[in-house]
């Protein structure tokens, strides 16, 4: 287990040095850490606590969501060009990258919708469903992306 985490850290470090030089690495790590916390807090509460996410973890979840949104948009700006059609990359990586971006965008929009006062409650309830679905998609896509990248390095 520890070995796996060490490997993941080494990969992230190398990846950051390669693609996010200097201060940009903060953005990259911000994205990873915020996503990790979002996924852990979100899924653990939904799966284990009948009431769902609440209390201090909810506050931190919202705060981490803000960090994730900023970092994601910056990463997309910097890295989008590496995953367009013309660039030579495995197609799976491209698909997973854009799936992650689309689901991330969905997560941001569905979060934002619960804070906007002109949307009805029923609409918001629908948005919560979308939020959870997007979170699942993003988790799956990033998992495949990581697995593929790690295997390629090996």
């Amino acid at each position: 287990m520890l070995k796996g985490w060490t490997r993941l850290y080494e990969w992230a470090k190398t990846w950051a040095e390669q693609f996010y030089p200097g201060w940009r690495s903060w953005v990259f790590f911000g994205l990873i850490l915020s996503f990790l916390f979002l996924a852990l807090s979100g899924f653990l509460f939904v799966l284990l606590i009948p009431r769902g996410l609440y209390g201090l973890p909810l506050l931190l979840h919202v705060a981490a969501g803000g960090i994730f949104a900023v970092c994601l948009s910056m990463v997309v700006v910097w890295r989008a060009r590496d995953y367009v059609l013309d660039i030579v990359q495995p197609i799976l990586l491209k698909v997973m990258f854009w799936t992650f971006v689309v689901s991330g965008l969905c997560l941001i929009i569905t979060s934002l919708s619960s804070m906007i006062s002109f949307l009805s409650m029923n609409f918001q309830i629908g948005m919560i469903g979308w939020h959870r679905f997007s979170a699942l998609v993003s988790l799956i896509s990033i998992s495949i992306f990581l697995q593929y990248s790690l295997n390629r390095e090996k």
Partner: protein
Amino acid sequence: MKRIVLIVFIVAGLGLFNTVASQRPKKKPQWSGSETVPVHLIPLKDEYDQPIIPTEVNPLPFSSRFTCAPCHNYNVIKQGLHFSGGNPDLSGRAGEPWFWLDEKTGTVLPLSYQKWKGTWDPNELGINPWDFALLFGRHMTGGGILEPAENEMSPQSRWNVSGKVEINCMGCHNASRMQNHSEWAKQILRENFRWAASASAGLGEVGGMASRLSATWDIFDGPNPDDTEWAAVPSVRYNASLFNSNHQVFFDITDKSSDGRCLSCHSVTPVKMSNKSFDSDVHSLAGLRCVDCHRNGLEHKMIRGYEGEVSLSFGEEAETFTCRGCHMGTDKNKAKRTAAGRLGAPFPDHRGLPAVHLERLSCTACHSVPWPSKDLNQVRTSRANRLGIFGVAQWETDRPHIIEPVYARDDFGKIAPHRLVWPSFWGKIADREVIPIRAEEVFAQAGQAFVSEENVAQVLLALYQEPDLGGTPVLITEGKIYTRNFDGGLNVSDAPENLASGGVMWAVRTRGAILPMIPDFDPEAEMLDIDVEIRIQIVLEALATNESAPGQPALLVNEKMYFIQDGYLEKGENLEGNRPTPWLCWLVEGKPEPLIGEFDLRTVKATVGEEQTLTEEQVKLVLEILNRTQNSDESEIDVFYTYISGGLMFLLDKDGELTTQNHKSAEPVTWPIGHKVRPAQQSLGINGCRDCHRANSPFFFGKVKGIGPLITERVRVRSQSSFMDLTLPYQRLFGLSFSVRPLLKVVLFVSALVCGSILLIVLLRVLGRMSGLVEKRR
């Protein structure tokens, strides 16, 4: 012969069948389908099922049990909600308890037979149905415990004199404006139980008082020819013009009671508000009546209208009468995509409201009762504060001190607005439990601690009865003037500036001027001024009429003493020292004592004109007396006495000082409330999340301060959050987070815009490539 035997058998068989058939329970009447109410032109029956002829001598009062019985099954009706208050098995969420008040001893004790949290079972306190009827029958509908069976009557009760309180059908169903709730209350207080319905329905005049009759009197004894004034037997003189030639009476009956009938017992009004400023419930203003939602069948098991209610009359349909059921529809309706609930009530969009609010809050939390503010509202209710009884006497009371809204969790775990009362009572502590003591028991043992105001009033009364005094006797001390009122207590007002300082002064108020009771004079003079002499004599004679006087009245001036002996004013030596101004006193075993003792004076100064009626000094004194009495008994069990007030338990420590502790018996009693519902535009949250979620929001952080009859700084203070079982620091943090929420919205919006734009560009590029509009990059 055989034929005769056969005929006898047939006749006997028919007779038996008829008897059995008549004993069978009558079939439950079904609704005919007509939406009209039949004209109720019916004969009146008395409690012995005999027709009432108004012109007869001494007719009995009408009985609803037998008058309504031919068409309405009384035994079915008496299962109803309003007649089941004494049934401990009655399920359902907590409602407003009854409050047993005793102003003198500072007792405010919540009572309920339903074992609601924070209430006391009347049976445990020795309150039998008879006591209960006298205490609260004024705002009860009759039936239930007020109509006890023979074996349920306690020996001390006087049901044989008063009669039972049958269900007062007309109290709700009489559409006539003659229906008089005040008359009902008056008759109940006079113990005229069986006459109360006739009097309050306006069918006739009821005179006499059962409370003044001997305990052996019975309805068959009839009137007492020897006493038609004081202990006159209650009787009803029917209004003959209401009867037709067949002795039938027209009852203006409605099956759906008007709101006024409900509000006789269910009014709730803010204390500091005039009736001109008072707004009704938004549903009432829209034209709905109470009974439009709070419906019932013949069983009178009324729908209370809260979520999760188990209604035996309506089954699942009861859910459609809740706020949610009416405005949002039940799940069944939703499946059919019905837009709203019952009668198409407006469907709430709840725009911008996270759905979790509907899971955690009752509808009333946002839509009902006053907007939460720093200071909670004090309200009075009909049943607790005796509202709606009009007459020469003032019936309404300030106590219990009911406050709202307190946001607490209800039986279903939802946060709902509640009304709250802090209990106050004397009790004994045994095995860490507090057992309340009846107010009369406390008074019997330590009465002298509670009569300070009466002591002053007695002196003033004695002086008041002397017509030659030339004005109203008053007591002046520390800038306040105390006068006796007609309830046997005192009124207080500010003294003129020239009298604002100084000690105790007995004076006479006449035409705006205040003069000393005894003017200054020179006692050493050879001849006393005749006017002064007369004045001294009438004042001393008046004081001598005070029945509670501890001794003979006297007047001390300089080194002289004046007193009455054998009807003459005598002058003697004052051995107690020099008195520069005339000083009225009692001579107790030859020693002068002030007309009013220091304890009484301190108590009067502290309590008269105040809402609170007790001082810490009084409480300490009473506890000392009660503990001493207990110790004098040869009891092996250690029992100590306590006074509960303001959310704390007051008791004496080992040094005899008054100390306080928290105790579950001192916890407040709360009950959820539904009305008054505000318009949607005034609902909580209409201004956004920060109506509740901010660092100092009264919704979460408002203080609920203990209040009781005791004047003290030592009271329990709880935050609203504590009633919701929420963590205060977290709620503060959560509230603060709403300060940065606008920033978060901007961040999310910009991020979404950036990601969305790039995705759009990529998508357009893909489309461009596919359509050949965009060439492949080299």
